[in-house]
């Protein structure tokens, strides 16, 4: 039915080719780096919106309702939904699609489930590459849903232009909202399941936490006040969903205008390059400068009390040609 290479079909808008290329990138098959190099050079325009929060907060239902609103407005919208891989078997049950309802009106829609595959930051290590693939395909929005998170799985902040933290009325008292981590990365707080009792209270707690934070100097990664909205929704009944989508639009517009949008993108690319460099350096240091036997001997010496990990690392580093030459 189709001819040409996968990339040619991808460029012609073939959904099957898109799905194949995502697997290719996710599985890091031979040649994936070359493919990504090509895609990085293509024009792209998608906005990436992340949704994160504890398990069962209603992230999938929110993503589904919000994406259908965005589709109806004529946007091309895709979803990456991450669920956990077993650290024991490597298997995964990807169940976010259960909440997915087909939308026949409006723009193009695409949904892809991903397993976290060993990453512990709430996403899969390949999420940013898959988002790049979808962006290159021409989508207007990439919605990224994390695994159900606790307080410190924050990779989403390094992969998105905007982060929505989804909580529920049962998410805890005022002290919980003061804790570091998850509450620091929100560009917008969504209190979902707002039909339940306690929703007003957590909205108040979040609002006062944000007031305490306003005016303080924050780390550049921590979203700044003012202008972090707190909105209550009931995703199943689509209560306040239009408002949520409007907030997405206005927050993105604000950030583009203030320059923060570009600052964030810049930080993400810098982080990606340094990660790749780190990885490359680490593997090559280990491969090139020292045979496995040499490292084993070093470990033996440390265990025997004749050497220490710090000196060993220094020595291994100095044996690579990257170490500064002594004069």
């Amino acid at each position, binding site marked *: 039915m189709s001819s040409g*290479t996968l990339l040619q079909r991808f460029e012609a808008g073939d959904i099957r080719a898109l799905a194949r290329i995502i697997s290719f990138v*996710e599985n890091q098959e031979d040649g994936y780096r070359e493919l990504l190099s090509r895609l990085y050079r293509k024009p792209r325009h998608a906005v990436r919106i992340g949704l994160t929060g504890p398990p069962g907060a209603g992230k999938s239902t929110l993503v589904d309702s919000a994406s259908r609103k965005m589709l109806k407005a004529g946007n091309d919208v895709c979803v990456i939904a991450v669920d956990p891989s077993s650290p024991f078997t490597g298997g995964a049950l990807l169940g976010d699609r259960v909440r997915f309802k087909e939308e026949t009106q409006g723009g193009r829609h695409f949904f892809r489930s991903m397993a976290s595959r060993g990453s512990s930051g709430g996403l899969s290590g390949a999420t940013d590459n898959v988002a790049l693939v979808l962006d290159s395909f021409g989508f207007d929005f990439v919605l990224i849903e994390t695994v159900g998170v606790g307080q410190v799985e924050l990779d989403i902040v390094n992969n998105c232009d905007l982060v929505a933290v989804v909580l529920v009325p049962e998410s805890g008292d005022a002290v919980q909202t003061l804790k570091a981590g998850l509450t620091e990365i929100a560009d917008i707080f969504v209190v979902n399941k707002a039909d339940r009792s306690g929703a007003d209270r957590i909205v108040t707690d979040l609002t006062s936490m944000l007031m305490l934070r306003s005016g303080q100097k924050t780390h550049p990664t921590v979203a700044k006040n003012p202008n972090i909205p707190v909105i209550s929704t009931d995703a199943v009944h689509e209560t306040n969903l239009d408002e949520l989508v409007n907030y997405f639009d206005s927050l993105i517009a604000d950030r583009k205008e203030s320059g923060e949008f570009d600052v964030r993108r810049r930080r993400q690319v810098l982080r990606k390059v340094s990660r790749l460099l780190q990885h490359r350096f680490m593997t090559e240091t280990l491969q090139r400068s020292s045979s496995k036997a040499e490292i084993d001997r070093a470990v033996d010496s440390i265990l025997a009390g004749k050497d220490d990990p710090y000196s060993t690392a220094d020595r291994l580093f100095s044996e690579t040609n990257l170490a500064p030459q002594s004069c």
Partner: protein
Amino acid sequence: MAEKDTSNKKIRVLLAKPGLDGHDRGIKVIATALRDAGMEVIYTGLRQTPETIVNAAIEEDVDGIGVSILSGAHMTLFPAILAQLKKQGVDDIVLFGGGIVPNEDKEKLEKAGVKKVFTPGAPIVEIIDFVRNEVGRNRADEKIM
């Protein structure tokens, strides 16, 4: 975010309940078993149409589709899914399933292109082995660039 140089390919299977049959205990058992066997299982839930099942399988780029039918509508739903796969030009995703299916129907379905129909009493191990050995073998090897 470690980027490895070797392939991380996993068997991906889509599990679905087509039609109006709401009995999902069985498919949940299978989903858990395949998960525990190290596979990535995309569970799409109840009341799926043949169109949504095949569309989901394409988007998720799965190796196989497993459907559970306990309603007696297997002679309608299996062929409808096969027809949908054909319509979309998909010839490398394995369709298999399970349910309360009489032997003569099972034979007809397997002749029509359902790779395997499991009936009540099928050992879980047999299903896992089937997926491991028969699903994902026929994926078209396409040139990327």
